[in-house]
């Protein structure tokens, strides 16, 4: 078994996967700490509430894993889809940040702390964030500072503030700068009056200034570092509680209408056409019984919801519109759907990246869908982004062996609008070609026109 290439940073353990099972080795040194943490009962308690990933002991010998004496092997419950914080919408990042703080506060009440605060340690089951790295828990030493503070700021707080204060989504920045948004860089973007807000002052401005100050005088810093523990527990608790209530109140500054968030309410479909679309998807899911459905261009998640209600077990909704994603996340959370909405620019999906380009997997590396929905999507890629129609069709078909894909013809008002201000350089954009391209890779199992303008749904099955 080869370790997961993204699990090398903490020497206390590595993650392995085999036949759909996830294992984590624990070094002998870490096992001692882990046992002390487990004895407090905190992990069991958080696990029971679904806040921490389900975990059992596994047999290293049977698995053929070579571990040092005194070490352990744990088996974790499998998360349906691994996502990264640069793919989460604002509301998901906020939920993950709050999980981290609340878990930390609960842990502290039992004499346990978290040694880091990386967003990569949080995954989602639907809209529920789940903490996956049990080895981050460590016994609390009275007076000890929160070592993960800076990491928390860079990977949770600053990305949230970027959108809440400046109306800029964090996704592109964090995808480029995987370790997060540097406090100094964020501080430079904030207007002066913001910098003196006491909370921003403490967690952004002052933090970055002190970083500069410390880095500029290494002798003094080393002296500081060797001081005895300085932060009483009640002050650490208050700091975490204040962060929690601050983050609870954050919301995006750019709440104005974006192109797609209101699409569900004012799109050009009349209700009868929309109902036909829902019916086609429900019928497909009922008959074909896919477990994992990817809805590319999910908008507010209404068709994902239909697929889930028709029997699909889990849905991932991808979209590039931030407000639509936040609406989809709210839908998932309010209706307790097994739906995770994620940011995706289909013309530029997440790449393999990080150390040796292997630490975080790209879009293609994580393909696992049984069924893909590509509704009102193809024209945006083929006409909006000039991607050849054949390439778009084959890309969608590579995502899942089965799928429902919509073709929107040139005489539809949406495509007309897209072509109004530009030359029509798409002679091959026709329903006949669309069908032919599907048939190059599979067969068409079903077809249904859903609008008077000639919009059509196709059910394909890949060869």
């Amino acid at each position, binding site marked *: 078994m080869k370790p997961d290439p993204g699990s090398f940073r903490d020497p206390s353990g590595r993650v392995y996967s085999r036949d759909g099972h996830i294992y984590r080795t624990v070094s002998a040194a870490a096992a001692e700490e882990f046992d002390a943490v487990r004895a407090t009962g905190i992990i069991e308690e958080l696990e029971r509430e679904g806040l921490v990933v389900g975990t059992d002991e596994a047999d290293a010998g049977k698995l053929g894993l070579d571990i040092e004496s005194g070490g352990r092997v744990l088996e974790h419950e499998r998360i349906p889809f691994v996502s990264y914080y640069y793919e989460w919408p604002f509301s998901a990042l906020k939920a993950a940040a709050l999980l981290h703080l609340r878990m930390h506060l609960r842990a502290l009440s039992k004499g346990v702390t978290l040694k880091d605060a990386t967003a990569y340690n949080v995954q989602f089951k639907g809209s529920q964030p789940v903490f996956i790295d049990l080895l981050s828990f460590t016994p609390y030493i009275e*007076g000890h*500072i*929160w*070592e993960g*503070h*800076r990491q928390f700021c860079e990977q949770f707080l600053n990305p949230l503030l970027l959108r809440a204060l400046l109306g800029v989504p964090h996704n592109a920045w964090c995808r480029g700068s995987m370790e997060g948004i*540097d*406090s*100094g*860089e964020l501080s430079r973007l904030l207007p002066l009056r913001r*910098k*003196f*807000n*006491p909370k921003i*002052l*403490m967690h952004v*401005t*002052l*933090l*970055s*200034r*002190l*970083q*500069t*100050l*410390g*880095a*500029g*005088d*290494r*002798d*003094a*810093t080393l*002296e*500081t*570092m060797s*001081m005895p523990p*300085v*932060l*009483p527990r009640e*002050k*650490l608790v208050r*700091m975490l509680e204040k962060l929690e209530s601050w983050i609870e109140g954050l919301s995006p500054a750019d709440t104005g209408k974006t192109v797609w968030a209101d699409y569900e309410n004012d799109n050009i479909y009349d209700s009868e056409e929309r109902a036909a679309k829902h019916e086609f998807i429900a019928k497909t899911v009922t008959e074909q019984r896919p477990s994992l459905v990817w809805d590319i261009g999910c908008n507010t998640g209404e068709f994902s919801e239909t697929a889930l209600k028709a029997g699909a077990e889990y849905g991932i909704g991808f979209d590039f519109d931030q407000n639509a994603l936040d609406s989809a996340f709210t839908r998932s959370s309010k209706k307790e759907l097994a739906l995770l909405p994620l940011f995706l620019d289909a013309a530029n999906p997440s790449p393999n990246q990080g150390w040796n380009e292997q630490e975080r997997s790209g879009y293609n590396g994580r393909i696992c869908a049984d069924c893909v929905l590509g509704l009102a999507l193809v024209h945006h890629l083929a006409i909006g982004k000039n991607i050849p129609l054949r390439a778009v069709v084959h890309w969608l078909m590579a995502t899942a062996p089965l799928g429902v894909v919509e073709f929107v013809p040139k005489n539809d008002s949406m495509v007309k609008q897209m072509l109004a201000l530009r030359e029509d350089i798409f002679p091959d954009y026709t329903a006949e070609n669309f069908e032919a391209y599907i048939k190059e890779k599979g067969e068409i199992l079903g077809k249904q026109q859903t609008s008077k303008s000639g919009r059509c749904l196709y059910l394909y099955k890949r060869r």
Partner: protein
Amino acid sequence: MKKSFSAFLIAAPFILISQPSYAYLDPGTGAFLLQALLGGVAGVLVVGRIYWAKIKGFFRGTPAKSPEAAQPSRIDEA
């Protein structure tokens, strides 16, 4: 309001005297110093001492050791 004003007085010199950031040198210093400040008198004294040296340097025209200058000597000692 009163709280914001006292925060302003404490923080103004940190913010108004702008410095480049050298975050890559030691990732934890800022968080450590911040929490030392929160922790109480001992932390305030340490941060105050570092900052006082910087202010003296500023007025004498001899800025505190730059990280580039400080780093090689550390490596030599090691």
